[in-house]
């Protein structure tokens, strides 16, 4: 039987990893991921988790050794944050192209400079175009459950892509909640047999070079290169359905369900809505409830899956509303707005509904997005947009804090 413990998000992540039974783990400590690494090493030292732990000198090597392990058929895990992720970028960017089902937690943290060790989603959002699947958790329980589900998504034969489970640094990584541990046998049944990219997997009976020079102007180079790129895009699009199926199966087997792509909260009769991501969502829902009590017809959309972006799910969820206030914990410098906001603008072009969208940026470098001060403002400004005001400027929520 499963049991309930009280722990922070980093420990919840380590329990999720432990239940997924990876064969090899490599981690290099970095704030705010460090205690996740410590819990994993403790689980291995105590025998709770039977995995090889690689002691390596930095994040570049962390992911490189896991690529090798994955090519040898191992189930693998790692976790990092911010500058560690930046140092990991060279193998990070190669992993999806090699179609390796590695699972990595990003304990999200704001980007340097200015020097910061606190939460924000600048790290994960900056690398979201590299080809990894990205899911953002709202609670510590969702961190644990999503790490288990991530292996089913990554190892699906029609997906075969690496997955990031993103948890907010500080708010989730160090925030303590009750977390239910699912029964290990049920998790085993749910996860099924380990799988990897067998096309490139190590086999002494079939010697090969993985990732030879491909492309260029020579015979068939261009068409071969396009075929691999298109295959990768096909896997990414396939992942949307697989993520939904895996969440449904997890709910049926383990008994906990989450909106796999976009969650709708009080949207049935809403005239306008706010959009959240990750741990800020609880405060967002409280603010929506308070506004509802004052007669405002507001709802909330929470994005869990950012890559692949759930375009259809977004278009379906905005058909009844006229305005949407998008709250980001990261800055898209190129657009002078939030990343999620920009995703929403892009997705709307694929649907028939255009809503008036407003970009809010808050929660940078560990700052708080509170119900009373910040979400109330988000709702008020979005309501103004619903009434017809044009709000073009990005609103920086913690500007006066």
């Amino acid at each position, binding site marked *: 039987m499963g049991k309930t413990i009280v722990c922070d998000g980093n420990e919840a992540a380590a329990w999720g990893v432990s239940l997924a039974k990876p064969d090899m783990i490599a981690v290099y400590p970095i704030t705010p991921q460090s205690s996740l690494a410590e819990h994993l090493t403790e689980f291995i030292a105590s025998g709770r988790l039977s995995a090889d732990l690689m002691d390596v000198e930095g994040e570049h090597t962390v992911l490189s050794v896991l690529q090798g392990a994955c090519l040898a*058929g191992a189930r693998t895990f790692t976790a990092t944050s911010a500058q560690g992720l930046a140092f990991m970028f060279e193998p990070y960017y190669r992993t999806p*192209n*090699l*179609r390796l089902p590695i699972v990595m937690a990003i304990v999200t943290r704001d980007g340097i400079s200015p020097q910061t060790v606190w939460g924000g989603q600048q790290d994960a959002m900056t690398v979201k175009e590299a080809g990894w699947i990205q899911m953002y958790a709202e609670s510590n329980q969702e961190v644990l459950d999503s790490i288990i589900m991530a292996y089913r998504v990554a190892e699906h*034969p*029609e997906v*075969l892509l690496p997955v990031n489970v993103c948890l907010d640094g500080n708010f989730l990584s160090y925030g303590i909640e009750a977390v239910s541990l699912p029964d290990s046998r049920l998790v085993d049944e749910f996860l099924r047999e380990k799988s990897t*990219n*067998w*096309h*490139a*997997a*190590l*086999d*002494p*009976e*079939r*010697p*090969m*070079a*993985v*990732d*030879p020079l*491909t492309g260029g102007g020579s015979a068939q180079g261009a068409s*071969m290169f396009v*075929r*691999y790129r*298109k*295959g990768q895009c*096909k896997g990414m699009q396939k992942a949307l359905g697989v993520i939904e199926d895996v969440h449904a199966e997890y709910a049926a087997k383990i008994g906990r369900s989450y909106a796999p792509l976009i969650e709708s909260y009080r949207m049935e009769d809403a005239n306008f809505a706010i959009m959240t991501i990750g741990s800020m969502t609880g405060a967002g829902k409280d603010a929506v409830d308070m506004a509802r009590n004052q007669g405002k017809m507001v709802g909330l959309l929470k994005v869990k899956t950012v890559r692949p972006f759930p375009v259809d799910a977004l278009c379906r969820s905005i058909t009844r509303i006229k305005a949407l206030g998008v709250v980001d914990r990261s800055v898209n410098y190129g657009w002078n707005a939030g990343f999620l906001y920009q995703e929403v603008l892009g997705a709307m072009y694929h649907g028939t509904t255009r809503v008036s969208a407003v970009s809010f940026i808050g929660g940078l470098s560990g700052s708080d997005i509170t119900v009373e001060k910040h979400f109330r403002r988000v709702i008020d400004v979005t309501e103004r947009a619903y009434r017809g005001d044009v709000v073009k400027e990005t609103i920086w929520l913690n500007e006066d804090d």
Partner: protein
Amino acid sequence: MKKQAKRMFDPSTIPDDLCPIATEFFDMQVGDWRAKRPVVIRTKCTKCGTCWAYCPTQCVVERDTWFEADLKLCKGCGICAQECPRHAIIMVDEEDS
């Protein structure tokens, strides 16, 4: 390993657009890239082996009374000519030879 081999050779279970692999070996002649070739002046060569020790591609081969580059592998970097204490190696343009 048996299990992997079985899966790998059942093509119906493996998409062919996952990632590139190479199973045939091609012998690339890096000597084809060369712009200048090292020519050993045998009367000056004392067979000290400095060129052999310095060659980054380890293509210097031993002859009876001298050393010289294996031109299938020599990229023409000129380090041997630079390091030779007897100035017994000169670099000659490929176009002229």
